[in-house]
């Protein structure tokens, strides 16, 4: 049971918004589509929901072809960023409106359903207020309550957190995840923020210029990004990508002719000369150790994100991001010695950007 897309394409003018996309979403999954702006995330959601016609391909709900079914006939709901349908009506009336429009629920049934969903989303205390009197986070929850109240099986959320400040995002993510785990069907969510995708979803897909570069279980995509773009994006903070040359004699990949990364255990997979080495910021640190190679660079920026510090270190023209799990302070221009864990590297082909292998096994 679920949603299936087969070879879906959509063109706007000369631009391919979706390019031969096929995928399957099972009930019970929380799916995030991730990618830069304009990659086709919104179009994909709209196609699944029936808000957009297709040029090619078919869409199935529970095995049934719904490609030509209008949105009204599908059991779905859509949530946009900071979107309230009726700014002049109370929160209660906003949530109740889809039930009233359906004209088949009694006043008591409506009241019961509104209260149930409001309680689930923790907005039962603000039902009598108007949208302008409540916070951005509460408005967003109202929009979701409205989407859920009719019991829609599939809920599509298009960047619902984009306009919220980070404290509200934090709170809202937890709430959304908790809400989701208590219902049937699937949530399908589009975002440009990899943290949303990681925190919320069970499955993720990465879109790039209308193509679905990778789709699958979240842990699998994280562990095996099929392309360097996926690895870079699906990482918090972004994965460091550094070009290097294979040195067959030393069994190393050499970066800037100085840093030598031992790749002896994966030599059989490396047939070419030029590679891109992917290093997650968490795999670089201040501590020496076995299989760790030192780099000396200069601190160019130190960013404090949440409860962690991202240090940007300039090494031979490469900007290398190092993650420290607390708030630390260094002066700019400080020479810093860091150690790269060579057992956790991703090696991508320099030409087609595909993942060739990883060091250190699983």
């Amino acid at each position, binding site marked *: 049971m679920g949603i299936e897309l087969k070879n879906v394409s959509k063109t706007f003018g000369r631009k391919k918004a979706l390019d031969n996309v096929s995928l399957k979403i099972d009930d019970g999954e929380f799916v995030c589509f991730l990618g830069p702006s304009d990659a086709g995330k919104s179009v994909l959601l709209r196609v699944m929901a029936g808000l957009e016609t297709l040029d090619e391909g078919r869409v199935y709900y529970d095995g049934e072809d719904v490609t030509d079914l209008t949105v009204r006939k599908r059991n779905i709901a859509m949530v946009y960023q900071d979107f309230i349908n009726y700014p002049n009506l109370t929160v209660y009336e906003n949530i109740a409106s889809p039930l009233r429009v359906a004209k088949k629920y009694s006043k008591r049934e409506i009241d019961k359903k509104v209260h149930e969903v409001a309680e689930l989303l923790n907005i039962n205390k603000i039902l009598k207020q108007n949208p302008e009197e409540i916070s951005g986070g509460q408005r967003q929850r109202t929009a979701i309550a409205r989407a859920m109240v009719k019991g829609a099986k599939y809920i599509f959320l298009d960047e619902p957190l984009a306009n919220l400040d980070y*404290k509200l995002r934090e709170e809202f993510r937890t709430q959304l*995840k908790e809400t989701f785990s208590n219902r049937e069907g699937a949530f399908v969510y589009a975002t440009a923020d990899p*943290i949303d995708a990681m925190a919320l979803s069970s499955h993720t897909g990465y879109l790039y210029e209308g193509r679905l570069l990778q789709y699958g279980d979240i842990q699998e995509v994280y562990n095996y990004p099929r392309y360097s773009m996926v690895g870079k994006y699906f990482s918090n903070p972004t994965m460091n990508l550094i070009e290097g040359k294979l040195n067959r004699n030393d069994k190393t990949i050499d970066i800037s002719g100085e840093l030598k990364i031992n790749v002896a255990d994966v030599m059989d997979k490396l047939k070419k000369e030029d590679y891109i080495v992917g290093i997650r910021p968490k795999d670089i640190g201040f501590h020496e150790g076995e299989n760790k190679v030192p780099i000396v660079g200069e601190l160019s920026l130190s960013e404090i994100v*949440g*409860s962690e510090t991202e240090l940007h270190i300039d090494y031979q023209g490469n900007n290398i991001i190092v993650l420290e799990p607390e*708030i630390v*302070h260094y002066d*700019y221009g400080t020479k810093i010695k860091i150690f790269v864990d060579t057992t956790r590297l991703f090696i991508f082909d320099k030409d087609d950007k595909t993942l060739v292998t990883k060091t250190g096994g699983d």
Partner: protein
Amino acid sequence: MAKLEFKDISHSYEYSFGTVKDRNKAKWVINDLNVTWEDGTANALLGPSGGGKTTMLNIISGLLRPTEGQVLIDGRDVTDLSPQQRKIAQVFQFPVAYDTMDVYNNLAFPLRNSGYGQAKIDKKVRETSDLLDLDEYLSEPAGSLNEGEKQRISLGRGIIRDDIVAMLLDEPLTLIDPKLKNGLRRLLMRIQRELKLTMIYVTHDQHEALTFAQYVSILNEGTVVQSGTATELYENPKEPFVGFFIGSPGMNFVDCNLKGGVLDCKGFELNISHKLQEKGVESEGDMKLGIRPESIAVSKEQQEKTHPFEIQVIENFGHYYILTVEGCNSRLKVQVSSEMDVSKGEEIYLSFPADKLILFKEKKRIL
């Protein structure tokens, strides 16, 4: 460059306009603020919207006259001076540049207005464009540049005059494309250091504030709750609000009662007599316990001094998970390494290291 000061500044729009005549009945958006921004420092005003940030900024720049109190620049009272007379440069969310005018003339504009001679103008435009990496665009119309480059023009127009005393930045990166933000942020920080500008950066984004500024003032409901460096605010919040606002997710709070060295958290107890003694704290009674999600120790097995909690929500952040857990009459967030195997509904055991506990009594930190 100069030092800026707020002396006993309060502001009420109603009272200033005279719509409310009774001082005690008026709504005060800013309450009795005393703040100093030292010469040549990078500062931030950080807080949720509605906290009074914009009002404060307008009082500094001179767009708004405070109902009470004084604004000082290098010790001189400027409360009654106009923004032009104060010589404070401002950068806003929207870049301010004339699209049809080339970059050179955009930068020269404030100097022409102040009657600088052509030779001097030319020299200043070249210096400023060099500093802001705008030199290659000097003959291009501003309209052909991207938002990040345009924001650099706004910045240039602000700093090009020799006589400015400080620079105010009102959420200058909020509307800039994420890909351009980093470059602009670095540029801002570099200029601040090179020119030794006194800068005040206003934002609701802790990432921006803590990254940019040496000193951050946390503003909430019209008062500065706490000022300090990023590390101070993170490690030593003086009020629960700071603990919540700084850090992601914020600090957990548990209502509790302290008696005889034992903290009764209405579901679990913590003996902290040793720590109280060490710090010389004698206070007892109702309190709020604060602990950060990353400071709680998590174990899969029950041990001495651990407390059982059930996992409600698991959020994956790549190298760590944030778990929302319930138990012992509390709901908490805890951080664990993603190498740990966890599942929803599972029982885990938490312990609270005494040296990481913070106690607040009536909103003020006592331990």
